């Protein structure tokens, strides 16, 4: 335009340009959408993800700071009590681990006898969830570890108690994780008690999974533990997912079964990124990488 902001502007000069631009950008958007739905925009996502990461950190850091301050001013007595409880818990867990190590050895020996060469053991990397809210209705969280540490899309994400979800997108420094309660998420599970296999779908609520593909006569009870079945190849088998909380319409042809996730999905702050044995795992020199050779049944046995 003319120099300075205050000058008189021609009234109709912009109109055709705006029309054309709108059309152009609409077409570009639709092309991008179509390409993205097919997963063809990995590099662009990675770049944009890196660009918005500082902003996400800027929003998350003060919230985290306030939370940690609250933790610090929580009373001495409370800390003492918690310390005592944690110490007791650790002793218990270590005792259980002793047994797990023995069981693992036995398992490997038995598998060797059978001629099945299944390698047990996965690599873990601890990641922190950023305090940002992406979209209501979609259960996506951002974690502070990314492609630079070997994180990749489709990678399972756990909590110390059970399954959390899977990585959907990575950028160099951060990645986006879809919780298993997202309406677009499905996870193959089996009933721990009898090995009955089915699929658990996200419900859109952080404390609920639904199991729509069970017949009314299926052997399933309230309180049954559901573990990953290992079908589908994303999640390694044997990790706890949820406990059955409600069974409705047991007499009809399809039972309405709902389950509560074992991990407290709305309260977790740290998660474990998992590399299954077939993959390489995180770089060894990273101090936060936790090498774990305890085995696939680790989380299960700890319960």
């Amino acid at each position, binding site marked *: 335009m003319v120099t*300075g902001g205050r000058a008189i502007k021609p009234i109709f000069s*912009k109109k055709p340009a705006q029309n054309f631009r709108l059309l152009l*950008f609409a077409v570009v958007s639709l092309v991008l959408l179509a390409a993205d739905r097919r997963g063809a925009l990995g590099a662009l996502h990675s770049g944009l993800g890196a660009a*918005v990461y500082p902003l996400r950190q800027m*929003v998350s850091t003060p919230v985290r700071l306030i939370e940690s301050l609250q933790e610090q001013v929580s009373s001495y007595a409370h800390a003492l009590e918690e310390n005592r409880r944690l110490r007791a818990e650790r002793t218990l867990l270590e005792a259980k681990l002793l047994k797990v190590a023995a069981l693992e050895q036995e398992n490997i020996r038995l598998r060797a006898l059978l001629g099945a060469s299944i390698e047990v053991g996965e690599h873990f990397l601890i990641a922190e969830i950023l305090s940002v809210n992406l*979209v209501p*209705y979609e259960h996506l969280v951002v974690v502070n570890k990314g492609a630079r540490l070997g994180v990749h899309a489709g990678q399972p994400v756990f909590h110390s108690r059970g399954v959390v979800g899977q990585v959907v997108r990575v950028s160099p420094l951060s990645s986006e994780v879809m919780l298993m309660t997202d309406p677009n998420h499905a996870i193959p599970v089996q009933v721990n008690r009898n090995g009955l296999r089915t699929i658990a779908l996200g419900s859109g609520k952080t404390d609920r999974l639904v199991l729509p593909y069970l017949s009314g006569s299926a052997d399933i009870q309230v309180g049954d533990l559901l573990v990953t079945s290992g079908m589908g190849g994303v999640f390694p088998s044997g990790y706890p997912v949820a406990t059955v909380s409600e069974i409705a319409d047991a007499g009809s042809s399809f039972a309405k079964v709902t389950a509560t996730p074992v991990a407290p999905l709305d309260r977790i702050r740290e998660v474990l990124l998992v590399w299954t044995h077939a993959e390489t795992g995180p770089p060894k020199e990273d101090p936060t990488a936790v090498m774990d050779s305890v085995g696939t049944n680790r989380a299960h046995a700890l319960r």
Partner: protein
Amino acid sequence: MRSGDVYPRLWIFGTLLFAMGLRILPLPPEWALWNPDWVLLLLIYWSITLPDRVGVGTAWLTGLFVDALTARLLGQQALAYAVVVYFCVRFHRRFRLYPLGQQVVTVMFLLGFSLLLVLWTRNIRGEDMQVGYWWAATTGGLVWPLLWSGCERLRRSLDLG
């Protein structure tokens, strides 16, 4: 770029960045539903007051970053923002003459239209649709008078044209 251009651009960029921060504020889930689309509110404001600086292109690019920020498919918000800002630029003279009440209703309508466009491009299953999806448009309209007067003061005091 002329040196006179840089100053307003920086301010527009700064306010948009701040709005993006508000967009991903970690509110509890039941409040997050009411969190309006601050980025679009500011785009509406700037495109009405400075239609020569903030147009369809700016809106589209901003939308692309918001898409990345909120982990959507790339192009969802971009398309919605571009369309809404197109109408704002087109009718900016008329809009500026509206009384405040009518402005609020128009802004609600624009935000709702953007939500509709995002919904259309999103492969969401029918049963997940809830009334709560539209609440953010309501709060967005209700904060408009505040945002308008705040931004007017900012614009005047900085002499952003």
